[in-house]
């Protein structure tokens, strides 16, 4: 089973005096008071509203207050163009002041497009009235008129002539925003290129690493390869140390009475026995080991000196 909810719609005439009890369940069509826009009714040798919109800013040149960024809208009625200039920020501020959220707005419309068929003078607030003069909806002081009608906008069906409020207009010009977007897009292109180059380099280096593995017949993991290298390094270091330690001892100066009786090496322990050594002569014999920085221990049993080097 499905339920379709149709939200309630309501038309609001927006001016400074508008008093709205905002309801988030209601969708609103906002009809702008003429004091929120400038309008010109013109006959121009141009084909359509789109072309007129391109030159709309020139049509209002010197006639609008300065220091405001205006948006323009145009529509064609019969053979004439209605050209509008409005300040987005002013309208947005008023909507905010009236607590009307943007999400609840269906359309923002000009009083000109929605009320141009009014006949007579209509009160819109305590001080102002609306009247159509030569096809243009104008706002006039209510004091000028005696017989005033009450404006009822509830039954108005919104036209297609809607304006698009630009939130950003108040602080960033559209043109600047376009430039920013182009700059950001260019930056993205640069970053994408950089990313592509880095990824390509990673691929190339990974392939090169694979080539190294296959060229030198390395094991599949670095841990295995490190273990193999460690094995060879340890083996090489021990053999080098054995040779250095032994040659250092053989270089020792021995008296004619002193003899090397025994040289033993097994389980990484080098043991050299020298005969007829006194306690005073011991240091002279082990001096070459000291000189090479080799760690050793000595044991003098009687006149037999045993030098041990743990490799």
């Amino acid at each position, binding site marked *: 089973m499905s339920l379709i909810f149709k939200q309630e719609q309501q038309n609001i005439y927006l001016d400074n005096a508008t008093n709205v009890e905002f309801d988030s369940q209601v969708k609103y069509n906002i009809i702008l008071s003429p004091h929120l826009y400038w309008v010109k009714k013109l006959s121009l040798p141009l084909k359509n509203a789109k072309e007129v919109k391109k030159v709309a800013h020139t049509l209002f040149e010197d006639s609008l207050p300065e220091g405001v960024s205006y948006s323009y809208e145009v529509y064609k009625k019969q053979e004439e163009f209605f050209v509008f200039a409005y300040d987005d920020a002013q309208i947005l501020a008023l909507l905010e002041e009236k607590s009307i959220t*943007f999400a609840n*707005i*269906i*359309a*923002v419309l000009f009083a000109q497009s929605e009320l141009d068929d009014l006949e007579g003078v209509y009160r819109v607030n305590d001080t102002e009235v609306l009247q159509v003069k030569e096809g243009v909806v104008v706002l006039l002081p209510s004091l000028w008129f005696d017989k005033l009608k009450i404006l009822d906008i509830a039954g108005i069906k919104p036209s297609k002539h809607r304006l*698009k409020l630009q*939130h*950003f207009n108040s602080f*960033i010009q*559209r043109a600047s*925003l*376009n430039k*920013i*977007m182009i700059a*950001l*897009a260019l*930056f*993205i292109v640069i*970053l*994408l290129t*950089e*990313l592509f180059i*880095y*990824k390509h*380099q*990673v691929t190339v*280096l*990974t392939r*090169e*690493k694979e080539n*190294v*593995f296959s*060229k*030198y017949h*390395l094991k599949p993991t*670095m841990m295995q*390869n*490190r273990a*193999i*290298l460690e094995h*060879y*390094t340890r*083996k*090489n270091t021990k*053999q080098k140390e*054995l*040779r250095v330690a*032994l*040659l250092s001892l053989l270089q020792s100066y021995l008296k004619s009475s002193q*003899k*090397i*009786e*025994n*040289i*033993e*090496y*097994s389980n990484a322990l080098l043991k050299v026995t020298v005969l007829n050594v006194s306690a005073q002569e011991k240091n002279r014999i082990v001096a070459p080991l000291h000189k090479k920085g080799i760690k050793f221990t000595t044991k003098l049993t009687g006149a037999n000196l045993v030098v041990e080097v743990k490799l």
Partner: protein
Amino acid sequence: MNKVNPLHIVALLFVFILFLLFQIASVKKQLTATVDSLHQSKEIALKTVAYKEFYNKEKVKKALERLVRQPSLKNAGIIVQKDKDRLTMEAKSLSLATLNSLMSKIFNGAYTISRLSIKRVDAQHASLQMEITW
């Protein structure tokens, strides 16, 4: 009111830029790791290859065979025994000159001495027991 707000597009572009910057930082890290790994692999490969070449089993075997066949050692009474992974040399009484010659060749070669025993017999002779592995 359905028009896309350009500020949203700008925000989206910013988010995408942040995403790309994050991706680039990640790939850069990966690149650095790959470079390091490649250098390490090359270094390990070159060292291992050098060691393997230096301690090459077949080369060591052949060099030892050539060594013990030398005339000066052949007649010195050195008993050589060889099996799958080691070679042992044993001599009860070697002259000091022969011992010096043998040991200097062993020490200068790529031989892995796993056991060595030299004992003085008299003023000119010594006994030898040596085990070389590969």
